[in-house]
């Protein structure tokens, strides 16, 4: 199996604060990897390093066999990396439809007329079709989170990075979300999913990575990881 993403000793500090400390792992193409860890562990920062929104202080990031450590986010998006932001970052003055239109046309270098049906289909799957023509600035938080997922999907990524999109959902909504992500996954998309809602995560992912103070303290089978002492300690008081 080919490796789609490979991190080698990636480190990043904000001043004295180490948020990524020699992070290394390989991700086989088609796998779904979950990332857990306490708040402030450096999970979102790790996404920013992978997508190029932040530059690492040291280390190397390979994507599809190519060194992308210094490659711009836009280039990585074109190469098939799609991401959501933990704090939603909609294009507020554009409509929901136009938010996806940007992603679909620029994320894959296609013409507007070619992508309309694909975009509409994503809006249907993420239950945003009814607000398609509303400005994104007027959406509720829940809708904004859906928009994050939808916009990432609209780039038709090979590697999809999702950052805490299941928080605050009802059980039914959460099941629907799990279905959507499962469908993407079975369609061949490689997924990295940061999530505090553990049952949603374990319903999808094949492997789990635990991050604490910027260090990888566990990586492997989700059940074994969840049973390990370190994880229980960290998650004591959150959810086991």
């Amino acid at each position, binding site marked *: 199996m080919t490796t789609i993403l490979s991190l080698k000793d990636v480190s990043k500090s904000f001043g004295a604060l180490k948020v990524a400390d020699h992070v290394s792992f390989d991700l086989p193409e088609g796998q779904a990897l979950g990332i857990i860890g306490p708040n402030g562990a450096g999970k979102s920062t790790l996404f920013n390093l992978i997508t190029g929104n932040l530059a690492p202080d040291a280390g190397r990031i390979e994507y599809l066999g190519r060194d992308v450590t210094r490659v711009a986010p836009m280039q990585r998006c074109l190469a098939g990396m799609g991401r959501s*932001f933990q704090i939603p970052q909609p294009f507020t003055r554009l409509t929901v*439809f*136009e938010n996806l239109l940007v992603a679909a046309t620029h*994320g894959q270098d296609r013409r507007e007329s070619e992508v309309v049906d694909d975009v509409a289909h994503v809006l249907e799957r993420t239950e945003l079709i009814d607000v398609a023509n509303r400005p994104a600035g007027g959406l509720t938080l829940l809708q904004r989170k859906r928009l994050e997922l939808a916009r990432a999907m609209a780039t038709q990524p090979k590697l999809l990075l999702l950052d805490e999109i299941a928080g605050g959902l009802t059980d039914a909504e959460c099941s629907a979300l799990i279905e959507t992500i499962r469908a993407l996954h079975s369609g061949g998309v490689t997924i990295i999913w940061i999530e505090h809602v553990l049952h949603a995560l374990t319903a999808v992912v094949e492997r789990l990575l635990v991050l604490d103070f910027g260090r990888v303290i566990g990586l492997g089978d989700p059940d074994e990881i969840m049973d390990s002492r370190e994880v229980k300690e960290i998650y004591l008081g959150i959810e086991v």
Partner: protein
Amino acid sequence: MTQTYTASARTRAGTLSGIAALILLVVAIVLPSFASRSLIQDLFFILTMLTLAQFWNLLAGYTGLVSVGQQAFVGFGAYMLFGATILWGVNPVAALFMSGVFALLLAIPTAFFAFRLSGAYFAIGTWVVAEVVRLCVAQWQAVGGGTGTSMPRDARDAMWGVEWIEILFDVRSSAARDILAYWLALALAAATIGGIYWFLRTRRGLALAALRDNVEAAKSTGVDATRMKWIVFLVAAFGTGIAGGLIFMQNGRISPDSAFSVTEWTAFVIFIVVIGGIGTLEGPIIGVLVFFFLQELMADFGAVYLIVLGLLGIAIMLFAPTGLWGFFAKRTGIALFPTQRRLETKR
């Protein structure tokens, strides 16, 4: 059965305002046949300021390039027009194009320098460039050095179309020159607004709007932010240079202080965009009208006028940060230049 969809940016208000714009344009073209000379001069002022405002809005409102050095391109464009007419005997009307080209050439090294800076440093950087260019131009003795110069008589008389206008409207040559300048300003403003509107409706224009709203997200969805910045900066310099050339062609006199005035060509322009509504095409149009009437109203008050402008600008920023047009559009949902693509089900 799955639906099929189409997208369209057409709206009723858009069609109506398109028709209105065409009528307005026709009226504006024939206006010199019955309007007074002072009205023509006022309209020239409004149209050239509108052009400058549209380009500054494109820079600051869409790509976040808050330049306070646009007077570099106004001044350089204007000086190149005088240089070309005085030194090489180029017809002033043809030299307008050179104003644009030279401003664009100046913009290339300026961008290399200023794009290394961001935020307030970018703003100051552009201002520094403008000052440096002003100081250099002030050394250029052939166009009057520090004191400036006037357009030579024969160059003035040779302007394309002036004779024809004299005969057509039965006016003296000075009035004919004003009419010519007015028509050129009208063409420039119309081309600017039409061009930007066309651009905003293209795929790149959509990217520009995304960039305006959220830079990080735009980059992460494949938008080439750097390229967009370059395109916008160079286009804005080209248009600003032509506007500068035209303003001083009409004026007939140039000096480094007037051509590189940060108050006239940047501060007033920022005021126009901010009170009208930044990041919209309509904003600068509303803004320039408000600015013009304020100026007429307070022409006799000197420095008080500037204080009032400043206070009004601050009040708008605090209480209606989207400007007068934003305030209006939010309540009515009207867009004179609709760019919004609507998703519709195909029947």
